């Protein structure tokens, strides 16, 4: 869907050359939610702005849906841009227009006739959940509502791609979640390819299929969210993953915790890696097998591709029953590691 090949962007600032994006290549598949994460200054914002040529690339080529963006000019470029929606951190709405007029804006640009425009605007208002706020001006809307207007506006011309430049960074956690849910919803409903730039790992965790980690203008690590989360390789990636997963201090102290656990049965570490295991797995085990299972420590998180995290449990009971229980857990494609055996 999107193919970025050897793209480079060099800025001149006070006669100094600054390479914001350095020979970067990336492939993004149709219909996926692709996250790009990095600290500020990593070049991620420049990267997303290169995609619709808000920034001119210094070198390299960008192909979106078969069109070589980097070769387009004038009217062709403007038409190609109509097929790429974009939402912004600070929403960038026209304060002089109401909700419906803001959403109609890209349709006016595309030259859609009035009756068709009104119909489309109403559909979009319903889609993003702003019914009743049609006549409100941006100053009368909350941050979350403003971003909903931004999303509706970005979707007006039925784009194939949606670019999100830190779209939730100015919102509180609860509003962030509702906006992310909306993005997943439109991704599924409309089959839209979404590219999302963020510095918040929980955004990636919550909605992305794949992720690229950027540092100093380059991608240092890329892969399925689940793989990157369960096995981060680069130091930056590890730092980001720690944002949402247990931190190493806690990991190290597992031995300490075990000291206070009575030496009975088996202590197991369960690894949930992208499994869609029933969240009630533990209680199911307790019901099916005559063993007592107690949770000692755990950190479990939900991603787009299933549950991710670890759980340390103690199982006490008949040895064969424990074995049966372990097999049952393994069948749910959860990795089981015995870290202490006192049977």
């Amino acid at each position, binding site marked *: 869907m999107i193919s970025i090949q050897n793209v480079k962007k060099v800025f001149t600032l006070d006669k100094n050359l600054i390479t914001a994006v350095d020979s970067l290549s990336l492939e993004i598949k149709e219909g996926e939610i692709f996250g790009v994460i990095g600290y500020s200054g990593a070049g991620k914002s420049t990267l997303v702005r290169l995609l*619709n040529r*808000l920034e001119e690339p210094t070198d390299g080529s960008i192909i979106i849906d078969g069109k070589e963006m980097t070769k387009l000019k004038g009217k062709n*470029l*403007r*038409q*190609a*841009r*109509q097929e*790429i929606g*974009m939402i*912004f951190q*600070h929403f*960038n*709405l*026209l*304060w*002089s*227009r109401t909700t419906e007029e803001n959403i109609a*804006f*890209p349709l*006016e*640009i*595309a030259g859609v006739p009035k009756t068709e425009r009104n119909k489309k605007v109403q559909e979009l208002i319903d889609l993003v959940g702003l019914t009743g706020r049609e006549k409100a*001006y*941006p*100053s009368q809307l909350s941050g979350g509502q403003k971003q909903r207007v931004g999303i509706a*506006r970005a979707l007006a*011309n039925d784009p194939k791609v949606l*670019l999100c430049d830190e779209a939730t960074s100015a919102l509180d956690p609860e509003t962030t979640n509702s906006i992310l849910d909306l993005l997943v919803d439109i991704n599924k409903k409309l089959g839209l390819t979404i590219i999302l730039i963020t510095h918040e790992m929980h955004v990636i965790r919550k909605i992305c299929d794949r992720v690229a980690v950027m540092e100093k203008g380059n991608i240092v690590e890329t892969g399925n969210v689940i793989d990157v989360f369960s096995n981060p390789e680069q130091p930056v990636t590890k730092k980001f993953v720690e944002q949402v997963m247990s931190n190493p201090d806690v990991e190290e102290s597992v031995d300490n915790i075990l000291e206070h656990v009575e030496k009975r049965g088996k202590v197991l570490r369960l690894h949930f890696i992208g499994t869609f295991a029933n969240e009630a797995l533990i209680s199911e085990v307790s019901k099916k097998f005559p063993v007592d299972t107690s949770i000692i420590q755990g950190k479990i998180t939900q991603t787009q591709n299933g549950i991710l995290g670890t759980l340390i449990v103690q199982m006490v009971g008949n040895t064969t029953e424990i074995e049966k229980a372990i097999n049952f857990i393994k069948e749910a494609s959860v990795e089981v590691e015995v870290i202490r055996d006192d049977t």
Partner: protein
Amino acid sequence: MTLEFANLDWDKLMTATYETFYMTLIALTGTFILGVLLGLLLYLTDKDGLWENKVINFITATIVNVFRAIPFIILILLLFPFTYFLIGTIRGPNAALPALIIGAAPFYGRLVEIALKEIDKGVIEAAQSMGASTRSIIFKVLLPESMPALISGITVTAIALIGYTAMAGAIGAGGLGSYAYYAGFQRRAFDIVFVCSVIIVLIVFIFQFIGDFISKKLDKR
């Protein structure tokens, strides 16, 4: 100085007031159009503007600065040949219009430029990301988004223009300035000067009130 308004000719006063309104309104319209064009040109050709162009920006800025630097009373005199060429006379309210517009438009142009610079760059970027042409950006983003500032700017300019019409009047353009100067000051009929001043102050208040009202009404921020 007598305050019984013995010297006052009400017909002449009405005509003078009408002429002042006439000159102000026509000149204001011309100033608005020319000023918006100048302001847009300054803004668009500026660094990082949509039509970034150092040469045009420099030329426009120079013209604006030169015409703003010339005192209005001298500008009228300098423009006599041009006025004569355009209007066919150098007397009367119509003859004042070229000088009024050329005197006020550069000032308003700068105010327009400032108003445009206040627009959030992100909004322009959003319009670009939707595939808007420069024309669409001008008419659908730049002008509507800066409208309250454009209106308060034209209000300030209108008040300056009322002052200019009085000056133009003193050298034969008609209006309240002319009446106050020729019939009033030169014949020691200070009641005329006084009444003309009061009317000018009232006109200024009216313009200020209307300007503030419209500007506030348009501002949805």
